[in-house]
């Protein structure tokens, strides 16, 4: 098997293995830890009979291993179980929420990624001058500011004081795309700000790293224009690191979504998860946790795959 293919298969297999181990970890974490699911549901005052009943009902008396495989078997077939609190099918409730979350994350990415790359290039172009320094300062601020602060500041000034955008982001199937977009304007802005600075800074570092290579000097000494140097020599070698930056930040965005959804009471998966953590509805938490982890692992995997594909040493073996 060619080396390239072998590495790709290996990386995908590793991703799947990681996902499987994560499912074990999440299941183990919610079962073996000292907390007792039955007790959590019924509270401290529950009678022993009631506890026994609910344990029976949840199948908690079965050995952990067989419960794990039942759960995993269900997952593979798309059956996420039923919520303890509402008795509803989790997969059904999650479906539309997952769609909403992806809708929000997608539009945040559409705004943030090109903007970050553009500003990153700008920082490289004006290295050590004021645009670059400004970007450094903004980055420092943005890694120090919690998502909900940006959320409430925007809500307070843009939403309430100026009244330019709705402060609560309701969304449902009956809305047109335009209505939906105007409804999610503020959360998209928050998410963009959350990942933008980081992505800019990392893009800048990735390009600078390439620009410091000896082959860039060779290109400059060939008498090429700055544009030609960047387009022909820097860019082909920057694609992999930039894709890596983007993927890492999208993974970060997935987590940011949780908080932003709560701030704007947006009907997505993040809010669903947080609600059910408070209610101690373990099956829902397990399902949501696994989905978030899967997206995160998947994005990291894509980043690695792009790196492998973009490496000329692997694409053109000796």
């Amino acid at each position, binding site marked *: 098997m060619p080396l390239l293919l072998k590495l790709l298969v290996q990386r995908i297999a590793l991703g799947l293995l990681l996902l499987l181990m994560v499912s074990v970890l999440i299941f183990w974490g919610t079962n073996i830890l000292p907390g007792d699911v039955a007790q959590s549901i019924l509270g401290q005052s529950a009678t022993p009979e009631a506890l026994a009943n609910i344990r029976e009902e949840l199948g908690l008396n079965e050995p952990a291993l067989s419960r794990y495989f039942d759960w995993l078997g269900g997952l593979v077939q798309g059956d996420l179980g039923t919520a303890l609190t509402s008795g509803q099918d989790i997969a059904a409730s999650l479906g539309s929420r997952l769609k909403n979350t992806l809708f929000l994350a997608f539009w945040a990415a559409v705004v943030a990624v090109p903007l970050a790359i553009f500003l990153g290039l700008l920082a490289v172009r004006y290295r050590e001058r004021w645009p670059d320094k400004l970007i450094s300062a903004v980055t420092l601020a943005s890694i120090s500011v919690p998502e909900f602060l940006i959320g409430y500041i925007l809500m307070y000034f843009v939403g309430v004081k100026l009244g330019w955008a709705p402060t609560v982001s309701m969304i449902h199937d009956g809305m047109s795309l335009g209505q939906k977009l105007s409804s999610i304007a503020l959360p998209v802005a928050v998410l963009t700000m959350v990942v933008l600075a980081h992505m800019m800074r990392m893009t800048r570092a990735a390009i600078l790293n390439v620009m410091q290579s000896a082959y860039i*000097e060779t290109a400059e000494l*060939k008498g090429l224009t700055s544009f030609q140097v960047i387009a022909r*020599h820097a860019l082909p*070698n920057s694609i992999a690191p930039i894709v890596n930056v983007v993927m890492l930040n999208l993974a970060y965005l997935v987590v940011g979504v949780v908080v932003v959804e709560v701030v704007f009471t947006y009907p997505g998966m993040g809010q669903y998860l947080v609600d059910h953590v408070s209610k101690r509805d373990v099956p829902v938490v397990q399902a949501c946790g696994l989905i978030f982890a899967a997206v995160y692992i998947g994005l990291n995997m894509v980043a690695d795959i792009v790196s492998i594909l973009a490496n000329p040493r692997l694409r053109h073996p*000796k």
Partner: protein
Amino acid sequence: MSDALLKVRDLKIGARVYPPGEKPRDIDIVHGVSFDLEKGKVLGLIGESGAGKSTIGLATMAYGRGGVEITGGEVWVNGREILGTSLKDLRQLRGTEVTYVSQSAAASFNPAKKIMEQVIEASIHASKFSKKDAEARAIDLFTRLGLPDPETIGDRYPHQVSGGQLQRCMTALALCPEPDLVVFDEPTTALDVTTQIDVLMAIKKAIRDTGVAALYITHDLAVVAQVSDEIMVLRMGDMVEHGTTDQIINAPKEEYTSDLVSVRSRKHEGKPPSDNPVLTIEHVTARYKGTNFDVLHDVSMELHAGQTLAVVGESGSGKSTTARVMTGLLPAREGQIVFEDRTLSADLKGRARDDLREIQMIYQMADVAMNPRQTVGTIIGRPLEFYFGMRGAEKHKRIDELLDDIEMGAEFKDRYPAELSGGQKQRVCIARALAAKPKVIICDEVTSALDPLVAEDILKLLHNLQKREQVAYLFITHDLATVRAIADSIAVMYQGRVVRYGTKAEVLSPPFDDYTDLLLSSVPEMRLGWLEEVVEHRKMESAGN
């Protein structure tokens, strides 16, 4: 003014440096250098590190690397002053009139593009040739430079050809647009000595065939003597001497130049081995953990008190691995290491403290061989505490003695390694090894990272200390001049085997085996016409076969 191709007048170059934690400050690298270069001539720029030679080379393209800036003077190329012209005009000059060959072709080729595309890029960009003509010219150059498969080598990616071949491709890249001037910046320094000679010959032939003028920058006077018509000696940004190659090599006027010329000519009378060696390694075979092939095959050698065994070979020959086996860092799979009359444990962990004390090591990079957070006193004092239990005044007295031995004063005791020069660092490492009062010191390329004159002093120091302490050296090096200067016996290694072993006189006298012959004849000698002789000699030999 004459109609020289290149005229440099009072060139001044500065740079901004950023010492960590301090304010950036400006320093001068080159203080007013002038020279002329006529069409078709080769000028060698020679000097130690920090002499400013690469900086001057790049200034002929009005280019400053990193924070380097040309602060004054004039550079005339083809009758045009280029320091004052616009970037647009410079772009027409760069890559077509003046081109550049760097030390590391591996880093200077874009890894994502095919070689041909990069070789012809400048010619096409300047509309000098059509794509077809440029490719034909590139293939012609590949042939002249002795590259294998000249028709197809351009279709490969840089990582698909060897280092020596890529260096020749870089030369083709520089010559393709028919420039008037090529700047060669240490083009063979990164290569093994047997590869260097081929590349050197290829470059020389290409210069002659195309009639191009060249600046040839190197720290190795013997190399530059082979290719240049004139030589300019630089030191700390100033010109020391400028003359014809013949004059510089055979009748240097300045003391510094004659030091550089004679640096490799140090001779050492080899002593015959004694009857009982201090350390013997017998039939050692070794491999690295997790691999399934041996890196050393049946290696044997002996070290004698007060004598030096030089182990020579190119990269990958197993010479450093031999040292690791001796110290027990890499346990031998087979064979044994005998110290005086006891067999040492193969593994470092199994050796007694006193066995460890007897074998000390000095490294190539003195920078990383000392803990940057320890003072010189601590570094030298630790073996005294550790092996001899010395404390307080006794220890300090001994540290002072050792500092004296390495010709550094007691005032260095409280300095940190970062405050020392390269040569001083290596001296402290020598003192640390001596502190243990060992019978054997392994010197792993201890002079290769140093400038020739500094290296020469270190060799002298090692030699004097050996005479006094009667310590045995295992001297690992790739540089045969160093071997001549210090060795009593020699082991030549190639691909993990000892291919030739004996006293210096035996090893360096014919008849030779093929590899030793190749290795010995590849070492540049400080005389004119050496390169042609070797090449002629080889041609005749291969014709004879």
